[in-house]
């Protein structure tokens, strides 16, 4: 031992050195934060992540110029490729900052002529000719005016074969040849001839669902190249492109004034991609970011911890499918069995214990209760296990096994717990259930193949505009729909009548008729209206998340 006594000194030195290194790092970390806060008005280099500025909330006088920073941390930002043909609907949050939409919409999910490049539009009686008049005061960030050429060019890009735009098939259903079907009458007038009646073409070319309606500059894109555009994009939106590190952040800088938004509130707006929720929460608590997406489970705790929580109630509706219920051997062939399933579950308990109180009982899947075209007099079914048992007995339920697929999804991470709870309720009334752990893509494959006799699975259908529901109902419930669980002639008739409507009033009435029929037929096991939640620090005073699909009203964060 004495031989090694001299080695104690190096050990102590090494330990002290390590400690000093950590201390030095901590000190430089503090000075890093100070530097990035004080340099908030200058542009940010690509080597550092822009830091949030935590300013206390006070009543804000009218701003003359954009000021300060806001940093939003999300799980995902789509492709992080700011180009109308290379981005999915999931990237709409930032795309709407950079680009304006051809046809405008508002946060209530309605068409709005005040919010898009088109100030006026009209449709022919046969719904195959649409005329649009553009505003003349919209300029791209390089000063070029936004004209009909840019609109035509953008639609052509978005409908091209290589385009990944999520809802492009809704547009290509009526526009297959943008070059010949779109006529430029004058620099600010455009006419679109569709190949079949397209009563919702203005919706399909808006920003209400995906990025299909966003307008990209033709001249600039052709100058830099279609592939290169996304590396340094320009648009006409309230924010211009600054910088990006893929997988890390995207940074935008406000225009001093925008025709639609006015003077944006924040000078710099940054999106950060932080997939892990614990890390997002830590970043919020450390004021590195100002807004984070948060799961339903964590929202109540964060609120207790002093963070502000903003929720989009009824963002989606959760339900289970009764697959292949049209088959003679299906356990759901009998309406009494379908009703029994709906009466067997306690929606209030599910909301409280599985979804942390962040949902409300819902009436008809796939419509959230706040969706257009619903009948609010039709309430969610009550929890009545005794009646469920009686119905099962009347129907002669023979104990046939129901196999419920269980999988987590990004929008419903509580999925497996939800399925376990549902299976428990069903078992309690005598329904023989089996839970099959799987993953969503495999379940979807089975749905497409229609091999799910007596099988069930869940989905959360997002709220969407009326036109969107019309499209999704065809896919989900029409006899010819790819994912149909029902082959009901009455549903087909009601759906086709809806598709034949031209005016919005008729469309709403047709939607209500279908909604009511499906409510009375118990076509799904409808559960709950789900909330999406965000946690913020004091940088955000108020926030209306709106009713758009795949976009939670980030516009309203920078709206003055």
């Amino acid at each position: 031992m004495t031989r090694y006594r001299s080695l104690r000194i190096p050990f102590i030195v090494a330990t002290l050195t390590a400690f000093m290194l950590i201390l030095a790092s901590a000190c430089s970390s503090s000075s890093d934060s100070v530097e990035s806060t004080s340099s908030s008005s200058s542009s940010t280099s690509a080597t550092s992540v822009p830091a949030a500025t935590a300013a206390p909330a006070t009543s804000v006088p009218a701003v003359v110029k954009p000021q300060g920073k806001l940093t939003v941390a999300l799980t995902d930002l789509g492709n992080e490729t700011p180009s109308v043909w290379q981005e999915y609907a999931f990237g709409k949050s930032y795309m709407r900052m950079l680009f304006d939409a051809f046809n405008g919409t508002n946060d209530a999910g309605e068409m709005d002529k005040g919010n898009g490049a088109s100030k006026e539009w009209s449709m022919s009686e046969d719904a195959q000719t649409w005329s649009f008049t553009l505003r003349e005061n919209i300029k791209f960030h390089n000063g070029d005016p936004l004209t009909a050429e840019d609109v035509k060019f953008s639609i052509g890009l978005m409908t091209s074969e290589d385009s990944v735009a999520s809802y492009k098939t809704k547009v290509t259903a009526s526009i297959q040849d943008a070059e010949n079907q779109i006529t430029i009458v004058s620099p600010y007038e455009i006419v679109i001839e569709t190949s079949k009646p397209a009563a919702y073409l203005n919706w399909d070319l808006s920003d209400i669902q995906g990025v299909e309606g966003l307008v990209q500059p033709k001249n600039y894109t052709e100058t830099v190249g279609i592939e290169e555009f996304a590396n340094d994009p320009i648009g006409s939106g309230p924010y211009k492109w600054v910088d990006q590190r893929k997988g890390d952040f995207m940074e935008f800088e406000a225009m001093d004034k925008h025709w639609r938004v006015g003077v944006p509130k924040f000078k710099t707006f940054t999106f950060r991609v932080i997939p892990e929720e614990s890390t997002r929460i830590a970043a919020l608590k450390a004021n590195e970011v100002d807004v984070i997406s948060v799961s339903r489970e964590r929202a109540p705790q964060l609120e207790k911890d002093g963070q502000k929580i903003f929720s989009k109630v009824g963002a989606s509706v959760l339900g289970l499918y009764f697959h292949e219920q049209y088959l003679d051997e299906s356990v759901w062939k009998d309406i009494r069995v379908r009703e029994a399933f709906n009466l067997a579950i306690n929606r209030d308990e599910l909301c409280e214990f599985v979804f942390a109180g962040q949902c409300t009982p819902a009436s008809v899947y796939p419509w959230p209760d706040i969706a257009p075209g619903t009948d609010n007099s039709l309430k969610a079914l009550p929890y009545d296990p005794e009646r469920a048992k009686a119905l099962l007995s009347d129907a002669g339920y023979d104990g046939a096994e129901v196999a419920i697929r269980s999988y987590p999804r990004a929008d419903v991470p509580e999925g497996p717990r939800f399925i376990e709870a549902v299976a428990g309720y069903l078992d309690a009334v005598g329904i023989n259930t089996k839970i099959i752990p799987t993953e969503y893509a495999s379940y979807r494959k089975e749905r497409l193949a229609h091999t799910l006799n007596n099988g069930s699975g869940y989905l959360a259908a997002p709220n969407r505009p009326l036109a969107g529901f019309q499209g999704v109902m065809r896919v989900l419930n029409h006899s010819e729909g790819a994912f149909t669980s029902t082959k009901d002639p009455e549903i087909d008739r009601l759906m086709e009548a809806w598709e034949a409507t031209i005016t919005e009033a008729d469309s709403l009435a047709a939607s209500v008729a279908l909604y009511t029929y499906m409510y009375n037929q118990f076509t799904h096991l409808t559960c709950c209206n789900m909330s999406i939640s965000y946690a913020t620090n004091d940088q955000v005073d108020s926030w209306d998340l709106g009713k758009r699909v795949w976009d939670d009203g980030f516009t309203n964060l920078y709206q003055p």
Partner: protein
Amino acid sequence: MQRYIIRRIGEAVLALLALSIIIFLMVRLTGDPALLMLPPDAGKEALEDLRHSMGVDKPLVVQYGLFIRDYSTGSFGDSLRSKSPVSELIKDRLPNSMKLVGVAALIVILISIPLGVLSAVYKGTLIDTTCTGIAVLGQAIPVFWLGMLLIQVFTVSLGWLPSSGMGGFTHYIMPAFSLGFFTVAAITRLLRSSLLEALDSEYIKLARIKGLSEFIIVWKHALRNSLISVVTLGGIYIAILITLGILVEVVFAWPGMGRLLYQGIVFRDFPVVQAVVMISAGIVITTSLVVDIAYAYLDPRIRLQ
């Protein structure tokens, strides 16, 4: 020696080829990427269009042929999700991972060498137990949990370090430590046993008889000879860090290859997954090849075998 090198290179190429078949088939076993890339309500036509544009509707043999053709011409194909060349995605991310691995390697060296030496020198004492305990912890603690714990302590509680993302040196500390800690454990234990063996050898006894100080004996003579096996294994471990980074990069939102692989797996972006796995495997196989060749050069007994 030449024959040995040629044989090893041949083995490395065969290993890569076999891996290409395995990874090609395994990613396709996970299912159809189009099902995940479109919203749940996208219809059959949209799915078929997307499958066609991705090329996943072609026969497997054709897809594999295209895969090999692309790789032999230096192309990794296009990402199914973003339509961008995979090589560009990797070009963006690989340097970020290399930087993180570099700092992790530095941390490994700075921690494991002193720990290994102390553990060997103070064998059987509390210091040895402590160092061994730290090594065991490193192998037992899940990497992601360690990362989350560090964030909680150093970001939320103390406010010393940033939680996530890339930036200045302070951004590297926690993710690099999380990434390297597992390897610290392995290197420490290896160094301890190598050093114990060295300290027991005849030339060390001679050095003591000659009156050299223990510091010189341990740090100059014994350690140097112990490092041969440590450097060999350590080099391979550090190459593996690139692949182990997936969990660390997700927890710390580090925009590296690990995150790219994670996104590729989640979205079934076959070309991305294939490319990342092939590149990572290539790095490990190449490192192993270089080490083997260097070893054969240094130790004639190996090449004569």
